[in-house]
């Protein structure tokens, strides 16, 4: 099962190390991770997505909560949460048509096109991991030269 965890931590050096070390030493897995400072510079927010069974997710949350440097640990319900990941694809252009086709594909997914060259093009796509995966599948036939992804950022909807 896929879970999104939102972890508010002290904005101090070494905390990311401790959190990732916890996942490693407890035999949990990290699917993606993103970290950024919050509106209050004393805190950072980590968003970690993970695959685990229900019991294990409960353990992950409890072990994270036990950490002295974590202020608040929440498991977000994906149906009540806005969650997005930013990805950048560099895609191969083999013939004159490809450029137009990739542009169409990017538009269909709400992506933005950058750095258009004779033989390659970059697409910036902010979407859910599932949508990014779907885009990736469709881009594959052109040839994906490189990809970079940020990991998920997530916020629960108000009133949810």
């Amino acid at each position, binding site marked *: 099962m896929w879970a999104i965890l939102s972890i508010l931590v*002290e904005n101090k050096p070494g905390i990311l190390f401790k959190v990732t070390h916890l996942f490693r030493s407890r035999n949990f897995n990290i699917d993606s991770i993103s970290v950024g400072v919050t509106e209050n510079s004393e805190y950072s927010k980590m968003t970690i997505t993970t695959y685990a069974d229900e019991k294990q997710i409960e353990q992950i949350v409890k072990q994270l909560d036990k950490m*002295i440097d974590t202020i608040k640990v929440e498991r977000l319900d994906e149906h009540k949460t806005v969650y997005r990941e930013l990805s950048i694809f560099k895609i191969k252009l083999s013939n004159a048509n490809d450029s137009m086709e990739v542009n169409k594909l990017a538009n269909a997914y709400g992506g933005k096109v950058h750095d258009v060259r004779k033989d390659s093009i970059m697409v910036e796509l902010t979407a859910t991991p599932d949508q990014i995966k779907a885009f990736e599948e469709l881009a594959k036939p052109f040839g994906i030269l490189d990809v970079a992804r940020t990991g998920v950022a997530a916020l629960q909807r108000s009133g949810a």
Partner: protein
Amino acid sequence: MVSDLINKMETMSGAKALMVAMEKEGVKQVFGLPGGANLPMYDEFARCDIRHILARHEQSASHMADGFGRVSRKPGVCFATSGPGATNILTGLATAQADSSPMIAVTGQVPVAMIGRDAFQESDIIGMSNPVVKYAFQPRTAGAVPEAVRKGFFIAESGRPGPVLIDIPKDVQTNKEPMDFPDEFKIRGYHPWADPDIANVERAIEMLLHAEKPIILAGGGTIISSAFAELQSIAETLMLPVVTTFKGKGAFPETHPLSLGPIGMHGHAEANKMMTEADCVLAIGTRFSDRSVGTFEAFEKRLKIIHMDVDPAEIGKNQTAQIAVIGDVKANLRVMVKLLLQRAVKKTDESPWIKHVKETKAYWKENLKIHPGEMGAAKILRKLREVLPKESVITTEVGQHQMWASLFYDVIQPGTFFSSTGLGTMGWGFPAAIGAKVARPDVPVVDIAGDGSFAMTENSLATAVLEDIPVIVFILNNSTLGMVAQWQRTFYDRRMIGVDQKSCPDYVKLAESYGAQGIRAQSMDELDKAIRTALSSDVATVIDIPIDPEEDVLPFVAPGTSLADMVLPS
């Protein structure tokens, strides 16, 4: 006004501030070893009232602090220098972490500007120790030292206790700054205590009252929170038999009619039998370790579990509880005692279950086969029990002697038995006994040891002799790494590899070479005399007791099997 405040703040070095802050925490002694990077701190011992107890190896120093902490329930403090000094205490930190023991380790570090440059005797002890400490501080300015100490002691001893590392760069030790020693502080992400959970304690009582075969499983948390009186009151009021984990050994007087002793891999036969027959367990301060419960699935099958623990992360980690009571176990047990009193519950009649428990206990008291020789482990440990005053403190090493102690040495006064149960650190018992003796100089302290374990930290004899800390080391000497040998006999077709110690060294001569007393006991008479001599002497004593290297520890629950699969002596 701010300037007034600053004027009131005394200017001093980080090293001096460390000592002042530790004195404020009530620290009377430190176990340690000096080196280049902690010399400024050591220099302060010349100018303060804290006693320095010199160990001969940093690992020994850390176990001394651990032993002190477990017995006094106040953090013991150890000192080590940077680099290898710091890495030598990793085993001590991991041992304390595994057994939730309050401890403060203060290490020297290379100067701030040298960190990360692979300086001489630099080690990233903050990074290395991360999984084996409750928390770690590395103050980067002298002024940050007092707060690190204040918070460190608070974290080490509150909630589920554990070791805290304070790593102090050398220039932070020497720099002078105006010092503020805060009484109040805030740690936003740390909530060590919950209020007693009255509603769930009520539910727990209902469940226990309606169970046919209820039992109490007391873990190490019962001892840490010293909930002895509450535990005994509840057991007697509800007529519940009491088993313990090995770490919980002695949470309940083992001479009490309701006591069945520890369960587990080398649990008492009657304890394992009754644990597997019970239908409801009140589990107090335990993490249900594999060594205690065997396979997790078999244990929780057909058993209703009420789990009390101070650490919410233990709930559901190894066993699924029907009722969870989170918080200090003493506080919650006290609520239970009160509620039982209010409801005027008092079971006096002997239920069929209690009758069965008592019969089972009596049967195994009669019928458990022990080594037939004069110097069998059971007889040796029963002799020790017979001669030692009941308030004596026991520590153990790790191996066969440890499990024999669990089986055959009855703890009469709760909270007088300590062992490295989680990490299983050979060499822990002797330095821990020294720490324990410092905490309780008024009672005899005995390290029940094996020859293999004792060899690992025998250097602490120098500390015991020179610092005048007269503990007793009680070696069941089979000249073998006995537990490994037992597994090789049992699981590896008697291929004995790497276990024979060939009677090297001679522990009597070894003791004497350190200026300690060494006595060899080869008969029950000699043993009786040796224990009495050790008790009346004011120097550390090593009693070396040769035993049969082929003697196994039984009963035995093999790894990966359940308590019901216990192998009994034939």
